[in-house]
């Protein structure tokens, strides 16, 4: 029997590929013309597995994001002044 769901998924994947290419191109242009940005992948530290939900919520935690931004600022300031950043 023909599996319509599979066929539909296959057709959909063609559209998804174009959408992915479009997003990749847009990212390249944003990096060149707009404000450059970085995406960092951080895994949950070993021994904190029971705080999984809290860890995942950090991605949208405004205060946490502000702290990361400040960390980047601090690092770039050190680099600009030619100082060695504290480890």
């Amino acid at each position, binding site marked *: 029997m023909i599996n319509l769901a599979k066929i539909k998924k296959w*057709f959909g994947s*063609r559209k998804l590929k*174009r*959408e992915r*290419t*479009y997003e990749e*191109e*847009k990212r*390249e*242009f*944003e*990096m*060149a*013309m*707009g404000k450059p940005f970085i995406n960092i992948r951080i895994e949950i530290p070993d021994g904190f597995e029971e705080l999984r939900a809290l860890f995942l919520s950090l991605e949208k935690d405004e205060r946490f994001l502000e702290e990361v931004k400040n960390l980047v600022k601090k690092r770039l300031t050190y680099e600009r002044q030619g100082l060695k950043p504290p480890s």
Partner: protein
Amino acid sequence: MDATILIFILIYLLTILVSATELAPLSVAALGGALLTAWFGIQYNVFTYEEALGFVDMRLLALLIGTMVVVEIAKRSGLFRVLALYAVKFSGGNPAKLFFSVCIASAFVSMFLSDPMAMLLMAAATVTIAKVLKYDPTPYFLSATIMINLGGTSTLIGSVSNMIIGMEANISFTEFLNYLFVCEIMLWALTIFVLYIIFKPKLGEKKTLPEYKPLESITNKTLFYKSAFILFLLVFLFLTLENSGVGPEGVAIGCAILALILSKLDPAEIFRELDWETVFFIAGFMFIVGGLEKTQILTDISTWLFQMAGPSPFNSTLMTLWFSGIASTVVSNTAIALTFAPIIGAHVFSGLNSSAVWSALILGTNLGGATTPFSGSVCAMAIGALRREGISVKFGDFAKVGLITTIIQLSFSSLYLIARFGLIGV
């Protein structure tokens, strides 16, 4: 009418219908049609298995795949992105300048990239700059779509339909430029002018463009310069090797091999990114048209059409231009080129008249491709990309602009063909 001819016509129409309505992907529709053609053709002795093997023009596929490999490597190097970035930088935040830059860059990149790929690139550039400068991206977007469709008309390798017609008519790269280059330049200028008049009130106000260096977006400079060199070499060899007996397909495949060697990229990854959908659609559709040719129906249509036009090259040229132009507003221009090329090929013209009719077919099949959101994949993609950015464009709004530009382009092309080939008083 013979039952076999009727079956072949039905297969052809069914393929067109399925691909136009996107009930199945283009390639599947054409390959399915090819399978039915093969089955009925051999069953009813319309053609033999050996004859069927010759239905697919391998030279055309070689030209297509060779060009795709060279362009894919150039795209990966960031060559086209840098062009788009320079075009935006040149505007200096002036909306009119930005509009002209986007239009010219769109047409230029589409001379090399496939229309959907050019659309993805220019859509990403337009959306980003519109966000940075807080402009409405719609006028830039729609103009880029129309210019991408037009840009593809400009060279032998600019669009798949050009390659099909060029191969069928044995038109070389330089002959192509000789017949159509002036027309193309004038069409670019005319279309940009018309689009500017239409969109002028919606372009936005002058803003300060952020400082950036386009070349800084290139991560692999060596690959960038190598790609630019190979692309230049491809065009140079197209122009210079035609008298040495090397066909454009030989040049394209040669440059593709050179590009693969010099780029040092993973060939498997390059091959994966090629537009196989188009390659298989063309192969399948060529097979269907090959079957139709064997029934003599295309020769009969050709005789009937050119008898209707009479002995005047004026009538046959303009009829080809407008008929193919109108047909390509609803049917894929690749399918139109594959159908019309053997019809025109079956008719014997004398001297310059054949060049006029072939040029008319090139212009017609291309120019109708951006008339409505359903005229070509590039239009559907533009609408889809705008929707992703939260902007909806109504069918009527797109069609209004598309219809105006298509009619102007076809009218101008008629005048050009009359003047270029001296069609009055012949």
